[in-house]
């Protein structure tokens, strides 16, 4: 049974059909890519699955459980982590606080703990910090743990966002253009990190990406979305050689890799 299963999902914004008859089956530990020109509806699909919009039609199950109609926080708690195309960090909070915030649901101490620093608080904070450090190390931001994110370089901010998403202990991670605006050096670092997440944590990853080098190298299966519809699905080689994809997305003359 797929970890994430979307069947016949269609969505309208008013009269505009943004997504049509979309299907997706992600197996545990699989890395999948979603490519397509700007405005094709890629981020809309993310927003539909993560519960920010409710699909007009269709069903979605996560780990066998239907999630259509649940609130975003309920879907997130069921194991769906996400990053955003435009960074969405809490600018004046520290890196550590970002990761801590993702451990919100594990915090059991209440007012008394907060006000008087009970042993329970110390114990829980310690566990959270240990976990946070592990993730920050993996994302290579542990040396700036106490810094406000607004002071960090762009690539590091991206990695903070990933550390935060991972701290939720998700079963599947959605990455919305994780390398947009990155320098070649930052891009390579991000690719290493995504591979590491896949291999070390065994997470399923679903990513939207414009850089074909990245998608072709990382993804087992790629979907191409045009005007809200999947026009091709297959392995990187298949996608690369699919004439519809080449025409609709890559352009007629050149294939940039």
């Amino acid at each position, binding site marked *: 049974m797929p970890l994430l299963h979307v069947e016949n999902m269609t969505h309208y914004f008013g009269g505009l059909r943004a997504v049509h008859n979309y299907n997706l089956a992600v197996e545990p530990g699989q890395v999948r890519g979603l490519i397509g020109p700007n405005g094709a509806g890629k981020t809309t699909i993310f*927003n539909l699955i*993560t519960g*920010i919009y409710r699909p007009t039609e269709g069903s979605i199950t996560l780990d066998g459980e239907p999630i259509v109609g649940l*609130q*975003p*926080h309920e879907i*997130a*708690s069921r194991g769906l*982590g*996400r990053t*955003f195309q*435009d960074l*969405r*960090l*809490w*600018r*004046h*909070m520290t890196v550590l*606080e970002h990761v*801590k*915030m*993702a451990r*919100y*649901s594990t*915090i059991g*101490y*209440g*007012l008394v*703990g*907060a*006000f008087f620093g009970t042993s329970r608080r110390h114990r829980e904070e310690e566990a959270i910090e240990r976990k946070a450090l592990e993730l920050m190390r993996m994302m290579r931001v542990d040396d700036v743990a106490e810094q406000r994110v607004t002071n960090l370089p762009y690539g590091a901010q991206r990695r903070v966002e990933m550390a*935060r*998403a991972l701290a*939720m202990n998700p079963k599947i991670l959605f990455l919305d253009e994780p390398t947009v605006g990155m320098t070649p050096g930052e891009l390579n670092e991000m690719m290493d990190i995504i591979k590491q997440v896949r291999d070390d944590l065994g997470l399923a990853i679903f990513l939207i990406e414009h850089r074909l080098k990245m998608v072709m190298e990382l993804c087992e299966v790629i979907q191409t979305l045009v005007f809200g519809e999947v026009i091709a699905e297959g392995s990187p080689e298949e996608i690369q050689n699919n004439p519809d994809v080449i025409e609709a997305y890559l352009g007629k003359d050149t294939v940039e890799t």
Partner: protein
Amino acid sequence: MANILQNLVNALQWGSFYALIALGYSMVYSILMLFNFAHGDIFMVGAYIGFGVATGLVALTSMGAIVLPNWLILVLTIIISMFLTSFVGMLVERIGYRPLRDAPRASAAITGLMIGIILETGNLALLGAQRVSFPPLINSVTYELGGVYITNKKIMIVFVSIGFMIALQLFVTRSKWGMAMRAMAYDYVVVPLMGVSINNIARMTFAIGSALAAVAGILFGIAYPVLDPYMGILFGWKAFVAAILGGRGSIMGATLAGFLLGFIEIFVAMIFPSTLRDLIAYSIVLLILVFRPHGFFGEPYSAKLRL
């Protein structure tokens, strides 16, 4: 000199009211990007609830149904009124603001004004235009220190206020709910992705702000025991000024600005005729804002509210 010290004491008391109300404004503003213009009227409702609870407890005591010393009645009044007023705040959030969360901010602002009018006139309909007086729970004792007269009430008011402000600061910096509030202040769209219900946090913010307004209402009732349904309007506006002056979302800022307004008003009244008090005081505030448009502790920001 004694005169100045005397006014300083008065200003501390007066500033306590502003600061307590300003905190509620400031929290809601920072977390939901919303001016809750009904907040001054929540202060009024809190004062009336406090009046009701205190009167009830006093009556029960005088009938001999329960035996409570006055100080305990005061403590119980504060706790029960905070609790009840927080429900009023949560109701306002649920009915008035939650449906408008993604609406233009102007719509949410006029919703606040309308809720304010409803609370004022609702009170009028319920209790009539007659002013009510807050039961005297504390026997006033005046201490003289080098020509400065300090009443036990003033000391109590200032210390209780500062106590609540410290508690709020601890809450926001050390509890998980406070952490979620701070996160929401910067970007609330991602907060649910941490498994946190933003509706719960919004509700909690209104509850806390309203509870603090109730404390201000009761303390005000103790210092100036005459309540009327419109008492929240001017207080609300001035506390709103303090919240903005303090800087968006800054507890320290709202507190200091609340006290600062108290000082400015009292000292202006010390020098000029009291009829000119607000005219001059708020001209000064205007000048401060011209030079510090983000307030004392505010930082220039552009909050992302939507996807």
